């Protein structure tokens, strides 16, 4: 049962169940079988894939469904080796992938089924949706919306002591759409304060490298800026996975990035070494399974021993 009452839920939630489509929450890549597959084989598939229902297809068209109840009945009555076609449910209630999630919720209420197959406009099976998919899909989306709200709130954060700026940005793993936004903000802060262009660039590069590291390698984290007249401090704090070998991570050219990250123009193994290169102070702490904390400081007023 899905604990959402369409008549008495907050409007933000109602807006969500109309905005989200079934395809946003369904499980795609469904394990389906042809109708001559034996029930015993289907039982094995259920066990191995930890699913409680398997769609039966004919030329990618959905023709039936076998549920765990059908399997229990077959075992009980001794026809577990017969083909799916004979015993499958043929009267199916299906959802379309373009329907709003609200349709899925009302179908769960109305039919009391554990799952619904999802088809596309061509009537092909494209996924399956369980009540669990609905709740987790909604939770994920609410989480995302909350994070977005936090991001906006941070932009409007109350000013600290005069002349000081603090900003915190949440950075999510693989969020390439927003990757770089925080660093753009830092650059703008420095620009507005009239900081020298070369120093602006150093801070922006350090921040962008750390931001891309969070996007590419972490499970998500925060990028924190502290700016005053003396220095700009950039901290990247994440929740894992942690760096197993710090010396290797600081070696130019060493990278754990995959081809996908590289195709986006990153993953050359220069991130941390380059951050250290442009920073006047640099500190890296990491523990596997816990997370990584990187701190880079750019002096806005030159100090003895600073890099040129």
């Amino acid at each position, binding site marked *: 049962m899905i604990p959402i009452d369409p008549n008495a839920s907050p409007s933000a939630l109602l807006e969500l169940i109309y905005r989200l489509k079934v395809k946003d929450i369904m499980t795609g890549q469904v394990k389906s079988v042809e109708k001559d597959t034996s029930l015993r084989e289907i039982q094995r598939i259920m066990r191995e894939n930890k699913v409680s229902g398997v769609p039966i297809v004919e030329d990618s068209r959905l023709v039936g469904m076998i549920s765990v109840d059908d399997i229990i009945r077959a075992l009980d009555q001794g026809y577990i080796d017969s083909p799916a076609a004979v015993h499958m449910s043929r009267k199916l209630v299906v959802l379309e992938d373009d329907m709003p999630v609200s349709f899925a919720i009302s179908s769960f209420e109305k039919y009391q089924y554990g799952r619904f197959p999802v088809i596309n406009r061509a009537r092909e099976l494209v996924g399956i949706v369980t009540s669990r998919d609905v709740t987790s899909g909604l939770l994920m989306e609410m989480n995302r919306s909350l994070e977005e709200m936090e991001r906006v709130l941070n932009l409007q954060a109350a000013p600290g002591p005069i002349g000081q700026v603090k900003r915190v940005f949440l950075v999510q793993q693989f969020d390439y759409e927003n990757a770089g936004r925080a660093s*753009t903000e830092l650059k703008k802060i420095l620009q507005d304060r009239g900081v020298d262009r070369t120093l602006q*660039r150093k801070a922006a590069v350090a921040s962008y490298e750390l931001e891309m590291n969070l996007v590419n390698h972490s499970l998500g984290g925060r990028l924190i800026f502290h700016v005053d007249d003396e220095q700009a401090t950039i901290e990247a704090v994440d929740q894992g996975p942690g760096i197993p070998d710090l010396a290797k991570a600081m070696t130019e050219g060493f990278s754990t990035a995959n081809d996908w990250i590289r195709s*986006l123009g990153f*993953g050359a193994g*220069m991130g941390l070494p380059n951050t250290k*290169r442009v920073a006047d102070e640099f500190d890296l702490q990491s523990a596997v399974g816990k997370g990584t904390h990187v701190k880079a400081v750019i002096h806005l007023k030159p100090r003895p021993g600073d890099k040129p």
Partner: protein
Amino acid sequence: MTFDQVLEAVSGEPVHRSSRWTTQSVKHVVTCDLMSDVLVSDHDEILLVTSLPSDQVARTADMVGACGVVLVNGKAPQPSLVELCTRFDLALVLSPLGSFEASWRLGERLRGRP
């Protein structure tokens, strides 16, 4: 080298003319598809030549204080890339040439050869 000379050199088409289009003097060109490598460059106001049409090109260019981007190999920019170049006041030029040919021609111009 002015942006009009850049256009001519790379047989380019301007997608966005920055506010400094007519006053900017391009002195350094960095050709790269790996944005990580661009971040290592220390020159001011570079012209970035790349075949990568993603948003991160504009973001990287902005971070290093580049003055413009030449997208080579006849690649079409993603709409968000054009939008970011506009927001960051970065010139954006499309060129049908390959990376090497475009860079070589820009290099010749920088050396004062027609």
